[in-house]
Structures are given as structure tokens and as C-alpha cells.
């Protein structure tokens, strides 16, 4: 285990070139989340279109892990139907809590698989989860989805 396993290429790329980092024009729900120990912050906004597809935008500042995670999240779930997005979130949360024991499924997680190394650094798991917690909370506030309230804690 070393630091390169944590900072995979994909993560560095999302960190340097974030996708979806912008406010959402007509947000239905918004959530601000902060990591009280290091000060990382992220605000996620969500909306659902007529076809039931999710749209997300975010703002934030923080370490490479939290910011890359936000970018991966925004890119992946943008335009997804709500239940698929929920499934991705579930899979990501599970991966983070796996202590490295779960083999991530690229089919489901896409670029999210790059975070597999994070699960071995307990102090960084919170960083990676921060935007996903915000997504869930924003959805709940907007009344979009999700039965699984509180599970990403």
C-alpha cells in the first residue's frame, strides 16, 4: 500500500479538470456539506427533468479526493434516471466502507473505481463521501428519490 494507489490517474485528472462544477439553473434541492476536521466543503444542487432524469451541479473546495469525487459524481449521475443514480451512489458508498475488500464493478461505478485505494485510508473516506452525502441530502430535500435516507453517513 502506498500513496500512488490512493491517487490514481483518474483522480488526478478529475481534480485538475473538474466536470459539472457549476451552479444548476433551476435547482429543486441543494445541500451544503462540510468536513469539520479539515474544512472541505461542497454544495450540490439537483433537479429532475420531465423524463425523470437527474441533473446535478456543484461548487466546492477541498482536497484532491473530495473534489475529484465530486467531479466523478457529477459526470456520472448527470442525466441518469433516478434509480440508476441511486444504485451508483449505493455502490460507491459500499466501496468506501469495504476496507479494500470489495472488487469495484466498473460497469456500475465508471471512473468511481479509481477510488478503490481510498477505502484503505480511513481518514480520507470522509473526503470521498462528502459530495455523495450532499447529493443524497439534496435529493431528499427536492423530493427526488430516495428511500435510503441517512445511509451514506
Amino acid at each position: 500500500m502506498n500513496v500512488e494507489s490512493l491517487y490514481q490517474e483518474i483522480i488526478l485528472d478529475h481534480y485538475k479538470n473538474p466536470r459539472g462544477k457549476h451552479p444548476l439553473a433551476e435547482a429543486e434541492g441543494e445541500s451544503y456539506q462540510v468536513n469539520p476536521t479539515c474544512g472541505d466543503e461542497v454544495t450540490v444542487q439537483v433537479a429532475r427533468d420531465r423524463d425523470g432524469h437527474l441533473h446535478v451541479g456543484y461548487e466546492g473546495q477541498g482536497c484532491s479526493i473530495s473534489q475529484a469525487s465530486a467531479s466523478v459524481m457529477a459526470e456520472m449521475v448527470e442525466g441518469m434516471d433516478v434509480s440508476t443514480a441511486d444504485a451508483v451512489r449505493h455502490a460507491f458508498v459500499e466501496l468506501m466502507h469495504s476496507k479494500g475488500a470489495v472488487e469495484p464493478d466498473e460497469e456500475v461505478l465508471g471512473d468511481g473505481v479509481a477510488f478503490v485505494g481510498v477505502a484503505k485510508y480511513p481518514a480520507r473516506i470522509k473526503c470521498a463521501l462528502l459530495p455523495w452525502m450532499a447529493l443524497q441530502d439534496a435529493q431528499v430535500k427536492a423530493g427526488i428519490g430516495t428511500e435510503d435516507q441517512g445511509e451514506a453517513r
Partner: protein
Amino acid sequence: MTKPLDVARIRRDFPILQRTVRDDRPLVYLDSAATSQKPFQVIDAESDYYRSCNAAVHRGAHQLAEEATDAYEGARAKIAGFVHGRPEDLVFTKNATESLNLVAYAFSNGAAKAQHGDDAIDPRFVIGPGDSIVVTQMEHHANLVPWQEVCAKTGATLRWIGVDDDGRLDLRDLSTIIDESTKVVSVVHQSNLLGTINPVSELMAHARAVGALGIVDACQSIPHMPVDVNELGADLVAWSGHKMLGPTGIGMLWGRPEVLEAMPPFITGGSMIETVFMDHSTYAAPPKRFEAGTPMVAQAVGVAAAVDYLDALGMDAVEAHEHVLTGYALEQLRNVPGVRIIGPQDDHARGSAVSFVVDGLHPHDVGQFLDDHGVAVRVGHHCAWPTCRRFDVPATTRLSTYIYNDTSDIDVAVDGIRAAQKFFGV
């Protein structure tokens, strides 16, 4: 079937029990209600923590910090499990006294903040004139003085459930004591002076019925019997580490999640915050909200080791063992003319703290003679002074046992009492 305790084997785990006192007498330790002794497993767990992974928890991106955090949170999970609670609902404090103050301050802080315009305070914690707080006449000062203070700061009224001649709660007028004005019912599970085990779930049901918060001081029960916090029916349960084989300097508070979530903070500072600005702050969710500053990490690790030790014995077996000792002590003391037991006379619903007075002898002098026989007991009012007054005694002498005692210890104590009687000619 519970396996009886192997006292001889247990004693080998406690380094202090190998020592002698006063002119080379073997130590007979009968003061576990004050504080228990510690097996080497607990002592070593603490030193190993310092030797191998000491660091600030929940902070820092380094490996030591990760390991220290694991040790601390792992201890929380283990200790919570011991009382059938969830780790998220367990708060670490410095002792049970702080745990109880933490709860009492939720009311005085809640009242003061509400008065100064904070309308986010849960109304259950806004207390004032016309409201009442109910305790019993057998509380330890730790569950009495903080409530007196709340009353002095808010104008609320303190009421109490009396104690009968046998050392049991007098529950006859309960509905005039716990009524619609009552916001808090806080009672001791097992009295440290009388040994009485109170019907706490009944009392908690009364609290619930009037919408009051129910609090149990479990200092003398959790170390000595199986306790499931859910079954107590309480909102909050407080106890100490040092009475259950653990180190000094750590206490516990378990709370129902919904109640902890609603409680305003007590001690404030680092680690209990969400955001901090110069002019205001927001607070973290429980249990962190109640754990300001650098926590008692090594001590939590020590209590977790104590839990392992007790779990290996089985709390059923611990309870059964102490029940035998209690019955034996009561019987032996009854056989000594001039000895009067303060507290329930029989071993029904009774723990192992046995208080007594000896005609013509002051408890302090009895204690001194026992000390001369190598027996460590506690004398005084045992931080339950009003209970002494209730029985019209200035103080008592108290024997209290634990897993490392057997009936021979009680025999030595009884010999000491007789020697004191003889010496003083009473």
C-alpha cells in the same frame, strides 16, 4: 447455565491483590463500590496504547492517527455493545459525575438560551418556575447536587421519592411526586450506600407517562449485573469506568438517539463543532457534540479491555457470584450482636454494597480496626449524606465486593468488627 467464578484464578490477574498492608497483612479489598481494582489486562491495554499508537484521534492524515482513532472508536463500539447500545449513542466523559452534569446542564443551558431568544432549543430542555425535577432520597450527591443547581439557576423545583425503613423507595405517593409539572425523573439503579436495587423501569414508565425525561444512574449496576439499556426504559444512562475494572478518568453516558440529538452541548471547544466563525458556531451530531477537546483515548481502550474481561467471565456469573457474597455478608453481620444493617435486610433486589453501624462505635473507628486487619472498607456518608440523615446515622461502614472476593474476605471483616467491639468494650 452460568459458570461459577474461579476466584483464585481471577485474583492472580490483579497485581495489587498480591500486596500486603499494615504489618504484612494480606490485603482484603472490600471497597469496590468506591473504585474497583484493575486486572493486568486493563493496565497493559492502556500502556500498549501509549507504546504503540498514541496520537490525536479524528485528525491528522497519518497512520498513528488512524490507529488511534480505530482504538478509540473500537472501544466505543465494544463498550456500547456491553450494554446493548449502539456506538453512536455512547458519549465518553471523565466520570459518571460529568455524565450526569452533562444532562443537567442541557436543562439549565437550554433554559438560558431560550430566554435569550434562541428558539431552536427543544422545549423539553427549557425548564423554569413551575417545572419540577424528581430524584430519590437515596441518590449519590452526583445525582442530587447537579439538579439542585439546575433549580437554583432556573427556578424549577426539586422533589424526591422517600426511602422507607428497609431502605426501599416509598412508592405510595408516586403520582403526587411525578406529575404533569415534572420534566426530569433521575434515579439511581442501585444505591451505593443501601445496596437497594430500584425498580427503574417502572419509574421510567412513570416519567414517560408525564412526558418527563428519564435518567438512570447505573454506576453500581452496570459493573455488577447484566444491563440492557433498552430494557431500562430510560432516555439517558450514566456510569463510570473505574468501578468496572477500568481506569480512572473516564465515564460513559448512553442516550436514546432522538434525545441526544435534541440536547444542547455542555462542554464546548474543539472536535464538537461543525463550523466555527468568530461570532457563532454550529455543532456536530452526537456523540461528538458532547466530547469537546482531546478525549480520554487510553482510558477508553482500558475500559474496552475491562469489558473483554467481564464478558469472558459472563455478567450472569458475576451477578450470581455477588449474590452469594451479599447473602453471606448479611448473614454474618446479623450474627454479630450490636450490628445494624442500614439498607434492605435480605438479599432480594439487593446489590453487594452492605452498610452497617455498630452500637457504641463510630463508623470511622470500625473502619480503622478493619484496616488494622488488612481490610479496606469505606466509612462516611458515601456521598449520600441525605440518606444517612434519613436513617439518623452520621455515617456508616460499608463492605462492598466484586469478582475477586470470596466469603473468606467477609470472615476477616467480621473478625475485625468483633475485635473493635472488644477493644472499645461495647
